[in-house]
């Protein structure tokens, strides 16, 4: 479903992406791991359309999307969640998700009808919120939600756009044990219906959820295999644990 060939991105002398090849099959949950500074977020940004690669191609569902803008990619079904929570703090959780539903419902040049009470928007929004487990908190301002709830909201907004591929950038960032378990449960239930690219540091989550794991070090993919094989891969151990692994 997602095919990346030879992706390169440099910031001055720093090669953040150094010829990355990356494949995700439909229905697969593919995790991307790597030490800090490996270039994971740069990679995700290029996939989502926030950063222009210097070289390389990205194909999504058979279509070359390398030149497409972020909004266009989203409309084609490539949804992302942000590593640093990026929701609409002044709007309620329901309104946040309703906006995501609205963005996918054609143009919005409608000036009269009150959007806050439009069942075409609030209905699907409620459903998604129930799915991620935020139904009780739907009328709370997003800025007032607990950190873990905001991360759930991020996932909810990505889901509300009816995506074909989910790009999740560290969905468990900053979460405590309970919250993480809840999120892992949520992602496990999504596995069956979604193709997911998961960037994560939480190894528990990665090994429980991933069908395949790619390891990114200094902008290059040094290994891409099943979780068991990755666990035993010498290069990976060296990258994470140092030379004496």
């Amino acid at each position: 479903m997602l095919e990346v060939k030879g992706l390169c991105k440099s910031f001055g002398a720093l090669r953040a992406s150094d010829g990355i090849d990356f494949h995700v099959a439909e229905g697969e949950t593919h995790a991307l791991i790597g030490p800090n500074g490996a270039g994971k977020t740069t990679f995700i940004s290029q996939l989502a359309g926030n950063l222009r690669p210097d070289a390389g191609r990205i194909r999504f569902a058979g279509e070359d999307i390398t030149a497409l803008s972020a909004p266009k990619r989203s409309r084609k079904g490539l949804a992302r969640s942000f590593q640093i929570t990026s929701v609409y703090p002044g709007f309620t959780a329901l309104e946040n998700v309703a906006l995501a539903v609205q963005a996918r419902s054609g143009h919005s040049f409608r000036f009269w009808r009150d959007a806050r009470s439009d069942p075409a928007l609030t209905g699907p929004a409620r459903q998604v919120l129930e799915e991620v487990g935020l139904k009780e908190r739907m009328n709370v301002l997003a800025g007032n939600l607990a950190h873990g709830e905001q991360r759930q909201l991020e996932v909810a907004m990505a889901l509300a756009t009816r995506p074909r591929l989910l790009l999740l950038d560290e969905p468990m960032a900053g979460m405590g044990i309970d919250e993480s378990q809840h999120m892992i449960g949520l992602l496990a239930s999504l596995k069956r219906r979604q193709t997911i690219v998961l960037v994560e540091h939480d190894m528990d989550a990665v090994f429980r959820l991933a069908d395949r794991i790619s390891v990114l070090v200094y902008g290059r993919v040094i290994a891409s295999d099943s979780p068991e094989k990755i666990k035993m891969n010498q290069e990976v151990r060296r990258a994470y644990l140092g030379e004496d692994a």
Partner: protein
Amino acid sequence: MRTRLILWGIAALLLMALPPLVIALGQPYYVDLVRRILILAIAAISLNLILGYGGLLSFGHAAYLGIGAYAVGILGFYGISNGWIHLLVAIGASALVAAAIGAVSIRTSGIYFIMITLAFTQMLYYLGISLDVYGGDDGMRLRSKSQFAGLVDLRDPVAFYYVALGVMLLFVFLTYRIVNSRFGMLLRAAKSNEARSRAIGFSPYPYRLAAFIIAGAMCGVAGALYANHTNYITPGLMAWHQSGEMMFMVILGGIASTAGPVLGTFALLLIEELLKGWTEHWQVILGPLLVLSVVFFRRGLAGIFFKPDA
């Protein structure tokens, strides 16, 4: 929600009662004063749409005040005094210019946008000055007020007052519907978090441009009314001073609220009126007052009563 409606109802009633009240007290001047405030409040309401709700820091909104006024003035100059034509041209011309300026400016943001909108409005100001046939720097007298045959006579100060009040309340209502519609929600979302908006699949540009045009057209109406009010049209209407004042009217009242621009306009203009009565150098007092209001008064007057609408 209920409280807001009640407060608006009270405000509307008070404003409706004002003319007979002040005339009975022998102070008809206040009809003129408040009418001027109402007309400028309309302009502030239009600016609040793009500034308060849209986050577009337009420092050139006075351009549309001028365009609306000159539409009335120039048409009158050529003998056309039909009020409906005046309104149509005021709205059309403002919308057109807003579309042109917006198309170029809205792709920029932040400080660029501020500077660019200011520069374009200044360009119109210079244009106005150089067109000697319409009075140039000195401006022009209004040949005749806009005629709305049979409906209302704008030469009657009280009738004109009620027209201004009616238009203002209408625009408050229109703004309320717009900002809570799908269009308004997207506009406000784009202001709240642009990156998130792009991530869920919409590009803010077309919506911002549309809002910019709507706001320009609304301000054009205010300009047409203003020309009728002052009977005199000068390029000074479009000077950057005016744009800055309009921004203050919006900010003082509290951005992103329907009552904000009205409150802010009343507050600013009444304070000016007060200061003008004390000294001809009133700006040396107003200046620091404005600075202090920005430094200390973050949520504006409406923020005292209500939470802002995101």
